[in-house]
């Protein structure tokens, strides 16, 4: 009934799949990056296509609107300048106190702006690709954030682009601290596959004093994420494991569903 050629083809496909799945992790990741690089020309075209309407819109913007925008930006600039002066004074004071107490100074972080070029086509992972790679000094485990807050960390790097695993994926757990009187600490972990804006905050003490609206920040423990990056706000908290622990639901500050530009923290 079945021809031998069909079986040979089936055997070849199964063999290829088994060989690929059995390759060492390093070889697989290199092969993966090589295959994904086939799409680079298309990503270039797609980003050019996205930029075109923006350029066109800029060209047809009325003069009055442009003048209004300049006025708003000028005022914002003045406010930021005055804030910068205040911050510089606080920073100097901070440095003096650090010197007096003999504390180690915090190493400043550099930020690199990246464009999100694609999302994971599979529904069971939460990753995005950005247009910065090892050429730009990107390394694995560097934190990635937006102006609203933390969004994830770099999981793999190629020469031209990198993969970012987002908060909410099981591969991205973050040690977090809650801004309350007891400074409760927990681990931000995965949530459901549908809602990208909510994550679970687990491993909290049963006596944790949680209230909706409290801010959740990175604790700095674990060595991947620096301390103090905003993650989100507590939405609800419930007692679990027969009252032995507490779990909270956190609404992320950053909108993971509409990421366009992100910042990578580089040491």
């Amino acid at each position, binding site marked *: 009934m079945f021809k031998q050629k069909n079986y040979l083809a089936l055997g070849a496909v199964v063999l290829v799949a088994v060989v690929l799945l059995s390759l060492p992790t390093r070889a697989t990741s290199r092969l*993966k990056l090589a295959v994904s690089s086939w799409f680079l020309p298309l990503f270039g075209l797609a980003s050019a296509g996205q930029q075109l309407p923006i350029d066109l819109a800029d060209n047809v913007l009325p003069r009055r609107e442009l003048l209004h925008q300049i006025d708003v930006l000028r005022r914002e600039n003045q406010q930021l300048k005055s804030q910068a002066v205040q911050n510089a004074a606080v920073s100097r004071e901070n440095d003096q106190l650090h010197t007096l107490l003999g504390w180690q100074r915090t190493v400043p972080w550099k930020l690199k702006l990246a464009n999100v070029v694609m999302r994971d086509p599979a529904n069971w992972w939460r990753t995005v690709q950005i247009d910065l790679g090892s050429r730009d000094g990107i390394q694995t485990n560097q934190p990635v954030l937006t102006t609203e807050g933390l969004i994830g960390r770099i999981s793999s790097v190629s020469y031209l682009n990198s993969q970012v695993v987002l908060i909410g994926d099981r591969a991205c757990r973050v040690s977090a601290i809650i801004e309350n009187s007891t400074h409760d600490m927990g681990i931000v972990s995965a949530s459901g596959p549908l809602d990208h804006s909510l994550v679970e905050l687990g491993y909290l003490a049963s006596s944790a004093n949680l209230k909706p609206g409290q801010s959740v920040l990175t604790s700095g423990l674990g060595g991947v994420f620096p301390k103090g990056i905003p993650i989100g706000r507590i939405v609800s908290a419930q007692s679990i494991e027969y009252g032995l622990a507490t779990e909270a639901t956190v609404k992320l500050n950053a909108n993971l569903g509409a990421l366009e530009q992100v910042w990578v923290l580089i040491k």
Partner: protein
Amino acid sequence: MNFFKPVLILGFAFLAVFGEAVLVAPRQLLGAQVDLLPVLMVYAALNADIVTVSLLAVLGGMWFDSLSANPLGVTILPLMAVGFPVYLQRDLILRGLPFAQLVLGAAASAIVPALTLLILLNGGRQPLVGWGSLWQWIVMTAGGAAAAPVVFALFEWFSHAFGYKLRTEVSFRLDREIHRGRK
């Protein structure tokens, strides 16, 4: 040999994977991304040869996995698991009927992600699976069902517009011609 159809199928698969990675609207509107590779596999299994079916499973799977956090090669087997049985039974399938295309598209779009998740979970990976995955699975199945007749119609149009048919053999042969009269 007519290479048009395999090239068309593989080219479409490449663009489909790219589109799934770039387009965010289905994810924002429906909560899930619709995968067109299973539908393409059904089309290839019904209308192309076994080499094209195998190439689509291998290349399509690798393209999909390369842009995803999936381990490379994990999507190859589910695609082939759909394509091979359809290919073997294709003489019994009324491939021209939109209803048959719809049912096959739905079945393929349901089986491929389910098998992929099964392989991932068996391999010790931790994909995001929960009750919400059921909704995503329904969206993928319905999306595949809706896309199947469209994909079939599109490929038929392309084949008619750009492809060529093999020359059919005729019974007349010059060497068997009966010459009447004396030479």
